[in-house]
């Protein structure tokens, strides 16, 4: 196997704020092979977007404390100067955001916003850049792109705007695409179209994809590997099959139970996990998931409250952060 295209090693991100230090990401490590898809899944506030922004170099270096390593295609991004990272953004690595309604500048024509993305990374004439913009809009399924190119964002629907965002991200053929909950803000009917569009374009171009979502259902067909985050930590990491058919962490298990079309096959109830995500300023002691964990009573003593479990392999390539992974509880079993 060749070296992974994207490697994140022991990433820590914290924000000093007036209320205290927000420990948004703690010791994340993962990697993606070229052309593959890694999904990062977790509830709101688990640190998914911060991870993505750290990779893209979008976090303010001055007001954020960041440590660890991000290596993209052999280049250590944290060792680069800010301007060098900037020149990779939008060309080698690109990102799509959650809310297409607010992610485009309301005062500029979408064509101009696309042209700007082309011209900042190369000496391209305006006319050529515009031609590329129209092509890109057509490619993401926008009807009559030669007319739409002169529209302002508010003249397009949410789904169309997200297509524009995708066109913009892909216009310089990036080798890494990060999609941060690209469908969360859209109508259910449009969600599937956008997901499919991203998958198709990725297959076509061979782009490496980092897909961020809070909905395990979305990535079942897309991802090769899945990274489950909770409280800024990776709590489970494995192939799609590992995560869907052999979940080891009680949190992953809870997430699966809350996905409608997966739940029916696995558990009877359709339940969101009770309780709230942890405060990132005052993290729970021991296992950060313990206040919500239904299984901690099965663990001997007070271990879950006193000691943070480490991420260990249950089988090769399948990592779990739990004192008593589910597989270990019901030997030979697929979940309870």
């Amino acid at each position, binding site marked *: 196997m060749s070296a992974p295209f994207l490697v994140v090693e022991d990433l820590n991100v914290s924000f000093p704020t007036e209320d205290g230090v927000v420990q948004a990401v703690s010791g994340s490590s993962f990697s993606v092979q070229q052309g593959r898809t890694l999904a990062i899944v977790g509830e709101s506030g688990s640190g998914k977007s911060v991870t993505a922004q750290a990779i893209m170099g979008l976090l303010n270096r001055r007001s954020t404390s960041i440590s660890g390593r991000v290596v993209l295609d052999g280049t250590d991004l944290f060792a680069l100067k800010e301007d060098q990272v900037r020149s990779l953004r939008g060309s080698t690595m690109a990102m799509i955001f959650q809310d297409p309604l607010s992610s485009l500048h309301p005062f500029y*024509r979408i064509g101009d916003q696309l042209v700007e993305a082309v011209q900042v990374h190369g000496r391209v004439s305006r006319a050529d850049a515009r031609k590329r913009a129209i092509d890109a809009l057509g490619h993401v399924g926008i009807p009559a792109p030669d007319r739409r190119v002169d529209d302002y964002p508010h003249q397009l629907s949410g789904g169309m705007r997200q297509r524009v965002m995708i066109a913009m991200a892909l216009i310089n053929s990036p080798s890494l695409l990060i999609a941060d909950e690209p469908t969360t803000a859209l109508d259910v009917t449009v969600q599937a179209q956008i997901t499919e569009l991203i998958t198709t374009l990725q297959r076509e171009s061979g782009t490496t994809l980092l897909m961020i979502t809070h909905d395990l259902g979305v990535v079942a067909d897309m991802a090769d590997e899945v990274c489950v985050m909770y409280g800024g930590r990776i709590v489970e990491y494995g192939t799609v099959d590992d995560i869907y058919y052999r979940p080891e962490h009680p949190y992953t298990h809870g997430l699966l139970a809350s996905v409608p079309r997966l739940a029916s096959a696995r558990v009877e109830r359709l339940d969101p996990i009770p309780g709230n995500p942890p405060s990132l300023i005052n993290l729970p002691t021991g296992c950060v998931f313990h206040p919500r964990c239904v299984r901690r009573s099965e663990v001997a003593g007070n271990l879950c409250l006193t000691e943070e479990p480490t991420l260990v392999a249950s089988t090769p390539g399948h990592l779990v952060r739990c004192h008593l992974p589910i597989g270990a509880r019901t030997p030979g079993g697929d979940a309870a």
Partner: protein
Amino acid sequence: MAGYVVRRVLIMILLLLLLTMAVFFLFSLLPADVARLTCGKICTEQTLALNRARLGLDKSVFEQYWIFLTGLFFGRTFGEGPAAVVCDAPCLGYSFTRNEPVLDLIVDRLPPTIFLAMGAFVLFIIGGVGVGVYSALRRGRWQDKGVMGASLIGYSLPSFFIGLVAIYFIIIRWKLLPFPSYEPPWEDPVGFVQTMILPWVVLAILYAAFYTRLTRSQMLETLNEDYIRTARAKGLPERVVVRKHALRAGLTPIVTAAGLDLAGLLGGAIILETIFSLPGLGSLAVSAVLDPDLSILVGVTLVTATFIIVANLIVDLLYAVIDPRVRLS
């Protein structure tokens, strides 16, 4: 867009008409007897009656307004016979204390006011917006705190205080500049600048403080917007992100304030014109109060309010230029 412009212009014309009404009736409500004011020292009942007739005060208020309004469009004559005074359109009234149409008086006094307003405007917009952006980009650091503190001081000091302090130190103590004596720039460019520089700077400081704070808060807001993150994700240099994306998005309230402030300044900066002895609209208004000459006050009020109404229209049209959502809805 064309429909929008037409609609706005029609509204403006209506507003101007209402304005003439408001100003006229407001001043006719004043307890002052204008006929007596222009009567002179030895005032007989006869001259008083003559004055009344000449000013049209013997007619009803509504008739007077009608004459005033038609005077605006077609001119009017005060009095009859050989003593009649002709006031050409647009007639804003006639000053019997100075024996000149009010419009001529105003037009005479307009240049110093315009120069003062424009010069200060350029200074405080460039200074205020520039420093505001700088401060926002260094939010929470000492530069930002320093700027905010300084602007608070500039914001709270009264203009006569800064003006007098400037005159005292720069002109009287240190003799860096001669005493102000206004000359039009085409007659004495150096003297013009020497006279204007202090009032320009004083006025600019007063207004820049406000624009610094406004720009800073606008920038802090827009810099947090999702489309700014998009702009950065595209790989745009920070300078482009700030100027083309963030500042542009936060411009609307700045343009509004700037338009109205400029209009206000064009109506005359009463205190500074007086302190720096600039023969502008503001000092014309002051001397009209002292005389007293109501016809001049009516004219100045009308012109000043017109500036503000026109500025409002321009600001509204600029909105549409800045924000396509206004233009296309």
